[in-house]
């Protein structure tokens, strides 16, 4: 194959925008959940369980998780694009990161829904 630098994949805007939007979602969720945690004086197991029975809390957490995973994916890919020169190695790392993130996602949902 010819040794030529090629650029011009024509994407990146959507990821750049998604990283900013997911950051805002995570910020809002974190503020809400922290204020909820501070709001209750003495936590016990039943209160904790009751919190996660509220559908809004579960779905908001799901939204937070999706945002976190997407944000992490874009960030990790950016790091690999910056520092990993070999395209084969970069692709392999992408696959590993996507695999790990999907794994974490499923695992997190399982934890939240089993509470």
């Amino acid at each position, binding site marked *: 194959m010819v040794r030529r*630098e090629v*650029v*011009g*994949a*024509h*994407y*990146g*805007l*959507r*990821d*750049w*925008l998604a990283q900013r939007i997911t950051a805002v979602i995570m910020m809002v969720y974190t503020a809400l959940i922290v204020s909820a945690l501070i709001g209750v004086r003495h936590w016990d197991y039943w209160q904790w369980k009751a919190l996660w029975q509220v559908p809004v809390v579960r779905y908001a957490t799901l939204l937070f998780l999706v945002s976190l995973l997407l944000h992490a994916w874009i960030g990790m890919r*950016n790091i690999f*694009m*910056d*520092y990993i020169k070999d395209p084969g190695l970069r692709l392999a790392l992408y696959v590993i990161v996507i695999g790990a993130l999907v794994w974490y996602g499923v695992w997190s949902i399982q934890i939240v829904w089993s509470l």
Partner: protein
Amino acid sequence: MRFSIYRYNPEADEKPRLQSYDIALEPTDRMLLDALVRIKARDDTLSFRRSCREGVCGSDAMNINGKNGLACVTRIADLKEPVEIRPLPGLPVVRDLIVDMSQFFKQYHSVKPYLVNNEPPPEKERLQSPEDREELDGLYECILCACCSTSCPSFWWNPDKFVGPAGLLQAYRFIADTRDQATNERLDDLEDPYRLFRCHSIMNCVEVCPKGLNPTRAIGKIKDLLVKRTV
């Protein structure tokens, strides 16, 4: 005054070294370039570029006490001793403080830094309203000294793919020009994970620009236009 200057001749030296110089300065020596010229008078093997000696040509960009800048507009009185002078980081060294700027100019040329207008030229000139002309302030002043691009880690890691702050500032200069008709093509060319989106807005470029320009803001405006075009 004490100086510690990067010396390297790739043809003769195995590796670069820092050479110390103790120089008695005259009261008329105000800027770092004056001191360098005085050092060169004593040791003419020291190589560096300089031309206009007043911050217009952009030839004498170098790394001064860890920060990129132009020697001709850097006041000696503001420098901490020993003054450590190195070539611009990230570019191949030709000799001492002279770097090979090919990669930098290749990226500059890639943004088509000229007016694209297919209408027949008017008899005198293509006029702009004063308001439209104001859009170019903070963009046209760039002298292409490369202080910004060579202080940008994204340019260090991907100089062959990332346009760099200087090139992107110039790209926006022509996007912002109301006389230019190739805005869409320019945006198409820049919408790329490497060419534009390697910029993570760390603003090293803003900190070092000897002309006080803000490439990060220009890059932000390119991104804004891309968003506006898409949503």
